[in-house]
Structure formats: C-alpha cells, structure tokens
C-alpha cells in the first residue's frame, strides 16, 4: 500500500432485519478500532442506510473526512449496490470505490446465533475493507441500444407488449410457435368475471398486430439461437416451412375445405374437434395463411394427393418450401411464452382419460365455445346428451404436495365461470368442490356471490375419487364423486353426469430450455424468475431480457396484459436513452507480460481474445468481453487483469475475511 486510503464503514440496521440478530453497534465500533491499520477513519451504524438520510450521511463523511473508499454493510449487492454507488458518485467519489458487504442475506437472515452472526459480520466487513483498498476508479462502458425488440410468444401478454412498443414507433419482431397468435385466450368462449366474449376482445388486437407497420410477425417459428448482450442481441429465428407461399395466398380457405385428410386437433381444440392436414387453427387466425402439417399430410406420407394444390386459385401451395433461418438484431427481449395446463391424467383417481365424461377445463372451454366442435352445446362425450348434474372439481394439480404446491390463481374463477355457463345453457344442477374460494380480483367476489344466487352448490372438500363403480341405488350410469364435506364432516358420494377438472397452470414443458437460451433462470417450480418479486416483476437478472404474463407465474388476463404493457414501458424507457451503461468489468492483457502462449485464446467463450501474429501477443476486445474472468485465472504469466475482480482485490479480501476466526481454537496471525 503506497498511499494510505481513507475508508468509511457504514453498518445498516435495516430496521430490525439486521439489527435484530447482528449487534450492529458493536460491529461498527469494532471496525473503527480494529481496522484502523487498513485505513478505516470513520465507522457508523444507522437505521436505514439506503434512505436518503443514510445516503447523505455517507456523502457528508466523504466530504468532511476526504474519504477515498466506502464500505457499506447492508443487504445483497444485487439489491442496493447501485444505490450506494450512486450516493458516492453524488459526493464526487468514483462509484466503483464503494463496496457493498451483505450482512443481511448472509448473516442476520440465515443465522440464529447472535454472537456468531455478529462475528461473521465483522469478518465480512474486514474482507470488504481489505478488498476496497484495491478497487480502482472505473467508468461504465456505454453501448448503443438497438431500437428493435424481440417478443417471444403471441398470447395476450406478448400481443399487448408488441402493440405498446410498435405504437410508440419502434420495430417489434413477434415470434410465435403456433400457426396463429392468440395463445390460450383464443380458445375461450367467455372470460370471467365480466363474461365478455373472449374472441370479441381479443381478435381486434390480433388483427392490429397482423397489420401493424412496425410489427414483423413470424408465426410457426421458433428461436434457434441468441447471441450478444443488452442493447445488441443477434437472434436466429427458424421460420418453419408452411408449405404455403404467404406472398400469393389470399386465405380464401378452399384448400382446407378440399383437403381429404382429417386430423384430431390436440392443440387448439384440446382434442375435442378435428382439423385438416392443411389448416388454420381457427377462423380468425392471424395471419390468415394456412400451414400443411407434414406429419399428417397424405402427400408427405404417401407421395400422392395434392388436392390443395389442385384447387388453390393462386398457386400458393409449395410442397418443396424449406425452413428459413432469419437473423434479426434487437436491443431487448420480452419472453411471453405462457403456460401449459396441468395434465389431469397424472391424478389417476380422477379418471380422466379412462372415464368418458370426465372433462378438463380446456376441453370444457371448447365445449362451451360457440365456435367450438359442438357449437357451444354443453353435452356429454356422446355428442348429444345434455347433463342434468355437473360436478366441478377445483384445484386439480394445484395446492397439492404430490403435484404443484402453488395456487394456480385462476382455477377458482374459471370454475365459477364454468358453473355459470352450465347453469345458463343447460339448467343442470351444479356442484363445485373447492378447498377455499380464492376470488381476490376486481369484481371476482361479486361474481362468486352471483353464482351463490344462481343456486350452485358449494361443497368444501378435496375430492378423493371419481369413479363409475355403483354402490348405492341411483348411482347407475353416473360418475360418483367421493368427497368429505369438511364443513359438516360428512362423507359424500355425489352422482353426476359430467365432471369437469379445473386443472391448474404449469410452466411450459420447454420453459427451462427457453430460459437457458436467454440466460435467465427458473424457480424450483419452473416459472421464470423476475429480478425482484415486488419491485421489479417484469425484468430479469439478465439486462435486456424481460418476462410478461404466465411465463412468470399463474395469473389472469388483466394481470397478463398489465405485465405485457409494463415490460414494453421498461423497454421503451431504455430505447429512449439510446445507450446503456454496462458494468465495466472487463479483462485486459498487459502486453509486456504476455508470453504469447495463446492459452487464453481458447478459454474465452465469446472469442473476445485475438492474437497478434506480428507482435506475438494476445489482446482482449473489450466490446466482446463479458467479464467472466476465466482468462485471468488461466493465464500462466499473470498477464491478464480483470477490472472489478482483480487478483489483488480477491487475495486481499481473503486475508481480510480471515482476520478473525469464530470461536476458533487457534490465533490467527494477521497477514
């Protein structure tokens, strides 16, 4: 240490979050007395360091004591590092000369032994102080933000996000896996709690997306590869062959009328109806062009047919069409890939797949849909019998340790909606089997009361079994729902004609893979993780990647729309700043020390290190370097240094951390 640094240490109480376990006063005094040699000139504790008063305290000290380094012992740097760095900047101290030490997430919240937590806090601060001495003043790297945005998933969340950004005047690439946008909402007849027709509110938005000059819509497409970082992503999109030329197809529909090959539609119709081998998923599909499902098309299987080609008036059918790879440059990304319904087959005792008249919620949506396979007639699997008694089972696969522990948030309301539709269309007697009624949205409780007034029976109890085994008179030909009514304590056997399983929501089967592609993570349940559960619900830990809608967790349409708009607003804010400050954590090679061994060249995952043949030395391209530090660790000549995480910083931090041992058997010899 040539020049002695002047260091200020600030210990936060975080209300009682830290002070309840860690003796913050003792820690602060200890630092003042014991870290003098390391350069600590002032040490304080304060109730809320991150408050404006707390920040002013630091700023005042920087001025008065001429502090050259600051260590704040508070919460995780992922929460408030930026706050305290900015505070330092406000007092003309380079922000990177401030080090945040986490004594909340790493001490007070995870330890119960107050003495040990206090001692550990001292050690962590000592580590921070030893490290900060070697921090260097840095300037953030500014990179331009590409004004285009990629939206993955064309459900209601993705649609909302795309429209917000496009309306503001910026380009959006909307990538949807299915032949049409619309997502789950397109499958519904009515939406709770207002019972407005889903198609009526959704399809105008879909049309807007399809015709918006700022939206490039890529359906039947998937993300192939993502490269780059915030502001500058390069995305490869695989546009699967539709076998239909979009430039010439008018969407007249003759092809799917003439196509002789019927296929059970397991996606849009949830297995309840058929489509052709050449098809649009539903009449209002956007875009209007059909696709040929090559797995089922007679021509692709047997080599003959081509009926669609014969009848197409514009010669739009192209059997030889191939997948296309489209590369786009975008500055930001929104993932809005939604959910999969829980597979009710997994709960074998409910009989789905075995007992004909057990339906899933999505099947019932199609059954009750005026545009669905029965024209909206609620009938049994035979296609004609109107049920007289209907049982609706809530929480299927949700709030259940054996399946998903979380609440799927929408199943109570969807069950009430089903009950209302059955009542309205059939006049049947209805039983809702619930654990708790969860109706926390606007107008939701009122909807529940409406159902009570309609005479729907509510039985509080988790259904044990649905079977067709007759035990009592009157049960013949019925499905028996076995349940304990937990309000009366009675075991009930309720005979019904139709049972509807209100299946919960699950993360998409490929959610993990998608998350990985974009460098973000999933929770243990499999939902994509937001940056902060309360304060930053649509951003993720990876700059430039946002999430919206059910991909983040179960939610209803209003919440999905709100998140789509929120993500769009966040991105518009970024686009308008035109450039973004990146953490200046980069590697650099000292030319004089480089031996030209080229070991570093191969360890870099981003090919950021190039080799100068003439000088026989390697060099880091700072625009490509992401700062992982692997080359720093790999260089046998020690010629590479990493800003923000230099060897000196870390080695010194180790010494600092070891300054005192917890109730140790041996005396530490201060290094």
């Amino acid at each position: 240490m040539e020049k002695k640094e002047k260091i200020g240490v600030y210990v936060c109480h975080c209300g009682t979050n830290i002070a309840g376990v860690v003796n913050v006063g003792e820690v602060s005094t200890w630092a003042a007395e014991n870290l003098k040699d390391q350069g600590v000139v002032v040490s304080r504790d304060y109730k809320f360091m991150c408050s404006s008063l707390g920040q002013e305290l630091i700023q005042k000290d920087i001025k008065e004591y001429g502090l050259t380094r600051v260590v704040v012992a508070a919460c995780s740097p992922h929460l408030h590092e930026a706050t305290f760095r900015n505070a330092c900047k406000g007092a003309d101290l380079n922000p990177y000369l401030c080090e945040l030490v986490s004594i909340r997430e790493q001490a007070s919240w995870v330890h119960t032994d107050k003495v040990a937590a206090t001692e550990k806090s001292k050690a962590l601060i000592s580590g921070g102080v030893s490290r900060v001495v070697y921090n260097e003043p840095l300037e953030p790297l500014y990179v331009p933000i590409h004004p285009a945005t990629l939206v993955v998933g064309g459900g209601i969340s993705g649609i909302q996000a795309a429209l917000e950004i496009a309306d503001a005047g910026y380009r959006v690439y909307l990538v949807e896996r299915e032949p049409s946008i619309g997502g789950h909402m397109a499958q519904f007849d009515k939406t709770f709690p207002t019972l407005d027709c889903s198609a009526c509110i959704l399809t105008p938005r879909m049309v807007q997306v399809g015709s918006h000059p700022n939206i490039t819509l890529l359906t039947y497409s998937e993300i192939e590869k993502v490269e780059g970082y915030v502001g500058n992503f390069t995305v490869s999109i695989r546009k699967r062959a539709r076998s239909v030329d979009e430039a010439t197809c008018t969407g007249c529909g003759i092809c799917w009328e003439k196509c002789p090959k019927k296929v059970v539609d397991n996606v849009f119709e949830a297995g309840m109806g058929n489509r052709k081998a050449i098809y649009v998923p539903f009449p209002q599909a956007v875009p209007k062009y059909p696709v040929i499902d090559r797995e089922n098309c007679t021509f692709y299987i047997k080599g003959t047919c081509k009926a669609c080609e014969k009848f197409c008036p514009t010669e739009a059918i192209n059997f030889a069409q191939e997948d296309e790879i489209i590369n786009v440059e975008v500055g930001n990304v929104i993932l809005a890939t939604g959910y999969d319904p829980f597979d009710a087959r997994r709960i074998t005792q409910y009989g789905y797949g075995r007992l004909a008249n057990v339906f899933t919620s999505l099947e019932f949506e199609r059954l009750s849909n005026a545009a669905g396979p029965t024209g909206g007639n609620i009938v049994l699997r035979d296609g004609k019998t109107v049920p007289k008694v209907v049982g609706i089972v809530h929480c299927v696969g949700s709030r259940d340790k054996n399946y998903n522990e979380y609440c799927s948030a929408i199943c109570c309301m969807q069950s009430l909606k089903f009950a209302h539709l059955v009542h309205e269309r059939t006049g049947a007697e209805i039983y809702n089997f619930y654990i708790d009624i969860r109706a926390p949205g606007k107008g939701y409780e009122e909807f529940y009361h409406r159902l009570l007034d309609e005479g729907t029976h509510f039985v509080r109890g988790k259904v044990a079994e649905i079977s067709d085994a007759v035990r009592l008179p009157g049960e013949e030909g019925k499905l028996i729902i076995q349940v304990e009514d937990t309000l009366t304590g009675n075991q009930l056997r309720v005979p019904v004609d139709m049972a509807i399983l209100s299946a919960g929501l699950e993360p998409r089967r490929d959610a993990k893979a998608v998350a990985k592609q974009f460098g973000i993570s999933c929770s243990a349940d499999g939902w994509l993780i937001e940056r902060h559960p309360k304060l930053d619900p649509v951003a993720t830990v990876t700059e430039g990647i946002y999430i919206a809608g059910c991909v983040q967790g179960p939610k209803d349409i209003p919440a999905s729309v709100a998140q789509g708009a929120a993500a769009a607003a966040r991105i518009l804010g970024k686009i308008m700043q035109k450039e973004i400050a990146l953490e200046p954590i980069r590697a650099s090679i000292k030319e004089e020390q480089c031996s030209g061994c080229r070991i570093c060249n191969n360890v870099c995952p981003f090919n950021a290190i190039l080799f100068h043949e003439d000088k026989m030395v390697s060099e880091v391209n700072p625009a490509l370097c992401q700062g992982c530090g692997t080359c720093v660790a790999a260089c046998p000549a020690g010629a590479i240094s990493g800003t923000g995480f230099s060897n000196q910083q870390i080695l010194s931090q180790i010494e600092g951390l070891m300054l005192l041992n917890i109730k140790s058997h041996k005396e530490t010899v201060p290094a």
Partner: protein
Amino acid sequence: MTEETKSFEPTIIGFTCNWCSYRAADMAGTARMKYAPNVRLIRLMCSGRLDPTFVFKAFASGADAVLISGCHPGDCHYISQNYKALRRFHLMKRVLTQLGIEPGRLKLLWASAAEGAIFASEITKFVEEVRALGPLNWPQPGEQVSTPIMEEVTA
C-alpha cells in the same frame, strides 16, 4: 481429542459466481433459511474466474476448508466456464492431497438461483464434514507425511 473436535468451529471461505450461486445465497436469505455461520463468501463473476491461487491463499490464511460454487453445468452465464472450474477443482484436490491436506476440505457445489434450500443445507453439511476432519494442521517441517500420500507422490 473428541472434546476438542466438538468445540471446534471451522472457518470456511466460499467462492460463488455472481449469477446462480450468489443468488442462491440471496434466496436462502430472503426465505430466512438457516445454515451454519462458518462460511464467508467471496463473489466472483463466474466460477471460471476461480484462480487456484485463491484456494491456496485461503488455506494459507488459516481457512479450514474452501467451498467453490457456481451454476449447474450447462447453466453458466458465460456458456461453459464452470466446466473449467470443474477441471481445476479436480486438479486442486490432487494438489491438496500432495500437500498433505485432506481433499475433503475442498468442496464443489452447483446451485441455481432457485436452490437456496440446497445451498443452505449443503453448507451445513459441509461444516459438519469439516468439523469431523478437525482443524487444518499444516505438516511441520520434518513431520512424517502419511503413507498413502507418499504413494501418490512416488507413483
């Protein structure tokens, strides 16, 4: 001896990457999961940054054990750098053995940002393992190094 081992509190230095494992620690905190207070963490950007020197420095400074943690294989924020950490880990274990330090004092833990519970329980487990090993005692000059290590050296 048993008495002494029982009261022995190991000090462990832990290295985490910025993206998954440090966030697992954050997650353990946010969820108020409890674990042993013996580990002191150092945040690196990636487990690939882990210079073996850091590990040896930690032992030299008096740590009884060292924990290395990063994203699960395949999940590294920088594509594949944790595989490099994995290779270095095996190498370091070998070197430690040759230096006469039990390889059980070095642990590698993969933890995703969602695995706060695993992070917490693995730390508590590791602390118990190190407690059982007892304090790290460097062989004194001239002290007989145990036989298996000799075999390893001459092999």
